[in-house]
């Protein structure tokens, strides 16, 4: 009987996890259109999305996917995003005095790390194929980004680590590269990809140059998602000011954290699609490099908007993404503890007693000689068995 219950519970949980997997699958046309309530296509992305995913379009309108039919994702309009609050502040002498000295130790223009999770991604018109395992055209786009950043006076670490094959574990392999790069203390870290849609979705002409646009991808799954969202909005605000139309939009994917949980200034960029030429992608990412110093607060003497979007928040704008993320982490932590206590003990009285036992005796081991009157109950054999 016990085993039967166990199997039922596990099957129910497994079904919950596996069901979305069957809903997935590569679209036959190769991409998905986001269609709003009026039947207008507002956004196009390369792969099937999920209900709950969101996007911010080039015109700063926010939509959420409510249902998906074949290659059409029906979206609802959530609202317009006011990007002005995400712009970098002008020079402020008061704040520049408060800026920690360590910031200067890395040189005035900062350090940027670049890597590529999907090492095979390539551009058909230039590279001939859309996927070249271990040597994708995406590395050349990374090189173009790196040299443009260097022109702007920034220090660049461009990793050539390979993470093929292009599978579900690729982000876990590139996580190791990301941590390796973070050990070198960069100011920002970018994971460069390309999308998979028709060429017109990413084609643009900016300042007389034919370029491929850039899409920002934010992993909403991780607890730090809110913080990364703020960062993405800052990037779009800076880009819209300098090169309107360069950032195609922001995609909020709820399925993963894409290693953005490791560092608050992490961003996933999709530069053009497989159908665009690599040269146009290289030009697009080079323009994008011009806004990086602004985003990192390297052009003004003041660090970026200390009290507002990157700090703890302001009374007018509400809490910042970082504060919201902290709230999520602590909230989930407390709810998790409460749920565990309730499940494992069986009654509120027992749960309270267990919590008291934990707070009074668990740390007695560390502070035994300084705390009087707290007595650690001896672990019984039965309790050890339970472990």
């Amino acid at each position, binding site marked *: 009987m016990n085993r039967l219950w166990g199997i039922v519970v596990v099957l129910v949980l497994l079904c919950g996890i596996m069901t979305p997997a069957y809903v997935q699958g590569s679209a036959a046309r190769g991409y998905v259109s986001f269609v709003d309530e009026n039947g207008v296509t507002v956004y196009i992305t390369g792969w099937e999305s999920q209900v709950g995913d969101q996007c911010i379009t080039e015109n700063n309108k926010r939509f959420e996917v409510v249902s998906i039919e074949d290659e059409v994702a029906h979206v609802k309009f959530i609202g317009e995003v006011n990007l002005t609050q995400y712009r970098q502040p002008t020079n402020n002498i008061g704040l520049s005095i408060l800026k920690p000295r360590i910031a200067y130790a890395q040189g005035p223009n900062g350090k940027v790390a670049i890597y590529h999770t999907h090492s095979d991604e390539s551009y058909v018109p230039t590279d001939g194929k859309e996927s070249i395992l271990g040597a994708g055209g995406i590395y050349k786009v990374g090189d173009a980004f790196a040299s443009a950043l260097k022109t702007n006076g920034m220090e660049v670490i461009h990793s050539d680590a*390979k993470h093929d094959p292009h599978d579900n574990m690729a982000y876990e392999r590139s996580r190791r590269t990301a941590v390796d790069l973070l050990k070198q203390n960069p100011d920002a870290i970018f994971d460069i*990809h390309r999308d998979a849609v028709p060429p017109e979705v990413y084609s643009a002409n900016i300042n007389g140059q034919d370029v491929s646009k850039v899409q920002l991808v934010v992993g909403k799954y991780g607890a730090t998602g809110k913080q990364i969202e703020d960062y993405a909005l800052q990037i779009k605000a800076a880009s819209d000011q300098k090169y309107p139309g360069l950032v195609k939009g922001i995609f909020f994917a709820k399925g993963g954290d894409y290693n953005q949980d490791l560092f*608050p200034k992490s961003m996933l960029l999709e530069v053009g699609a497989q159908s665009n030429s690599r040269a146009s992608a290289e030009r697009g990412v080079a323009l994008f490099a011009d806004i990086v110093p602004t985003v990192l607060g390297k052009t003004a003497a003041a660090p970026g908007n200390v009290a507002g979007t990157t700090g703890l928040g302001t009374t007018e704008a509400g809490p910042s993404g970082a504060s919201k993320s902290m709230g999520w982490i602590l909230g989930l932590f407390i709810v998790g503890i409460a749920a565990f206590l309730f499940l494992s003990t069986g009654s509120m009285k027992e749960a309270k007693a267990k919590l008291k036992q934990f707070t009074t005796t668990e740390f007695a081991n560390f502070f035994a000689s300084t705390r009087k009157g707290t007595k650690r109950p001896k*672990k019984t054999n039965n309790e050890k068995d339970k*472990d």
Partner: protein
Amino acid sequence: MNMPIGMMLLLVVGVLVYFGIAHRILDRMRLTDKQALLFIAAIIVGSFVDIPIMSSPVELSINVGGALLPAMLAVWLIFKADETGEKVRGILATILVAVTVSLGSRYLPYEPENMFLDPKIIYGISAGMIAYLAGRSRRSAFIGGVLGIVLSDIIHMVTIINLGIPGTTDIGGAGAFDVVIIAGIVAVMIAELVGETREKLQGGPLLGTHRPEGLYEFSKEISHTNKKSKTPIKENNSNSDENDQKNRGDKNE
């Protein structure tokens, strides 16, 4: 690093909660509180040490904090298991998790736009459930999560060598934040959650007089020890308190 206060606090809170949970999990792996804390310190320091194993045909290295230490703990747990059955279950969980990860990585969605759950969590959950089905044990969940991912990395390496794809395999390369450790932690949490939920569905642990003998009851235990400990402290001088603590220390060892 030029970082505003909000981001710094977020990093600090995130790291504290993460290592706090890791500590509670390690505490259940035949380690005392102090040993678990030392182990976490060793993982953090070890995160900065990569041991190269080979450089051709693909680069292979292992990170001390992210893979070597947790794998050693898992292997030690297998050796220390009381019954042969428990050892077999630990090894079985490892193999099943490695197979799940290898198949899952091939067939589950892999683009940012269509992933439905973070791979770290998927494989942690798989490890927890497999270990629960195999032996209802937190320890085999940890073993399955940690060694399963390490084994899946070795499978990945063999795959790319066979296919002739250039690449690197840095087992546990993300150190304390590697999928090896996260899968181990999530696996234990899932085994615990499934186990406790099932127990709860069955009516929960009995309370009161019908409670099975030896099943730990916290409220009773606390009231019992409180009554006992208060009396001698009030009546006796500090010497007896010191003796008391010495005895307690012996018991804890």
